[in-house]
């Protein structure tokens, strides 16, 4: 029982990373209609960026830990920076292709992903080597029914859930959300209703990038090592989460993230190499059984 609970905690911890990343993935798909395969690299930029930003704050750290205010600043800067890079990527790489067939945007996204991985790798001050992630949070450990859970894990899980609720409300209840829904359904008609689609899409990418940064910080806080390749695997897993939950659906993305995280941890507990395969097994099964995902609506094409 205790070990079951312990695995569940780890599963939720990993799931919250997937969920935060999948939220951005699914929003970009839902609103812009493209699979941004470079989304995982935004996570890497956020995590690696945090490493460098934390270095700038070195002078205020005491024995390798940072005061709360500094941690807040570091995270905020990392979010704004990653969000800004996401907006830049959209403006440079995706915007000119917006009215082209989807496949072209998808291939471009693969190229962007390769660029975002390999460009920092080629930079002399970044390079390919993994680096230790600074300790932003000093976790307190609690024991519940024999399983230990840290304050960092609790924060991560709550953060993912709160973010999902906030985004859901944003899309359903605000002016920006209404504009997002309009853009997702018909970009041209939306622009003729006075909606600045470039702005709406930029904001979408900004939110996605900023959440990817948070996701990267969460991931690196529990697996404290950052490198330029870390985005690709996590990006794939968050894509699986988004598809599992029903791509384009915000609640589905979080649900998918948590299911995948838990499944992966339990599979790893059974066999350490099997854990990595489980994501793709789930993807294949969901595509065969319910291609629209758990929350997705089946659309019947009228002929």
């Amino acid at each position, binding site marked *: 029982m205790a070990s079951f609970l312990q695995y569940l905690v780890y599963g939720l911890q990993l799931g919250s990373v997937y969920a935060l990343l999948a939220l951005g993935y699914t929003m970009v798909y839902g609103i812009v209609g493209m699979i941004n395969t470079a989304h995982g690299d935004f996570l890497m930029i956020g995590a690696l960026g945090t490493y460098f930003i934390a270095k700038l704050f070195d002078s205020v750290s005491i024995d390798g830990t940072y005061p709360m205010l500094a941690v807040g600043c570091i995270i905020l800067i990392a979010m704004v920076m990653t969000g800004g890079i996401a907006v830049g990527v959209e403006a440079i790489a995706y915007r000119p292709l917006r009215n082209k067939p989807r496949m072209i945007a998808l291939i471009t996204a693969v190229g962007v992903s390769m660029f975002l991985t390999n460009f920092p790798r080629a930079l002399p001050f970044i390079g390919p080597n993994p680096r230790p992630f600074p300790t932003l949070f000093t976790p307190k450990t609690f024991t519940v029914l024999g399983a230990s859970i840290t304050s960092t894990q609790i924060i991560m899980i709550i953060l993912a859930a709160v973010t999902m609720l906030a985004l859901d*409300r*944003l899309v359903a209840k*605000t*002016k920006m959300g209404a504009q997002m*829904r309009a853009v997702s359904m*018909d970009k041209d008609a939306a*622009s*003729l*209703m*006075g909606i600045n689609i470039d702005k709406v899409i930029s904001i979408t990418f900004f939110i996605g990038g900023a959440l990817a940064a948070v996701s990267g910080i969460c991931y690196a806080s529990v697996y404290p090592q950052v490198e330029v390749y870390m985005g690709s695997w996590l990006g794939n897993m968050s894509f699986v989460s988004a598809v599992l939950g029903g791509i384009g659906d915000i609640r589905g993305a979080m649900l998918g993230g948590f299911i995948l995280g838990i499944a992966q941890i339990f599979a790893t507990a059974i066999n350490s190499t099997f854990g990595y395969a489980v994501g793709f097994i789930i993807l294949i099964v969901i595509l065969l059984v319910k291609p629209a995902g758990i929350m997705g609506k089946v659309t019947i094409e009228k002929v």
Partner: protein
Amino acid sequence: MSLLEVKNLSIQFGGLRAVDDFNLNLEKDELVAIIGPNGAGKTTIFNMLTGIYRPTSGSIELEGESLVGLKPYQYAQRGISRTFQNIRLFSNASVIDNIKMAATMHCKDNLVSSLVRTRTMVKHERELDEKAMSILEPLSLADKADLLAKNLPYGDQRRLELARALMTNPKILLLDEPVAGMITTEIEEMAQLVVRIRKDFDLSIILIEHHMNFVMPIADRIKVIDFGRTISEGTPDVVQKDPKVIEAYLGGGYQNVNA
């Protein structure tokens, strides 16, 4: 000064001059119809008047302000709204959401007030709902407000497009073939509807249409376009009798047959 002044508007796609030297002065409360055979360049004119295409040359001025080079959403914000020949609704949204989405540019509530639902924001939302219903009512869509747009019958979808365009508070309404695919009785209803909303919403209207029996009774002026050029213009009576118009519509042999 006219409400809308369009001068020497031309657009070239490669070697094709799709619209050549189009001029239009639209006065306030006027209804001008643009007619012409298929492929004459009518919808292209609308696309230039809404910022979708940028004209190769010429000017578009709304109340003295030049609009050429602005983005489509800026045209809409300045008060030009349109419907589409092939219906372009937000098909997966409900009827009421469709038209509320068209009002977002006039919404002044910020993110925070919307997320926490402040009292003023809730009040604004209620006003918006009331305005939406006041537009749906005369278009006999009020009882269908919660249906998904894609599930509406064709005639209702056409009227919903009209409602959505009205919700943007336009000064000028552009109607692109509002009765395409409709039967005679529906065409008559739509003509009455256009007359009514023109009066109720104090609108200036430009419309494109093939159906002469729809256009003739409601238009103040008609411009006839063929191969991108204006071949005739004037009141419906004048245009109807213009031999150039008859030739464009029925072919050059028509007069010989008559004679």
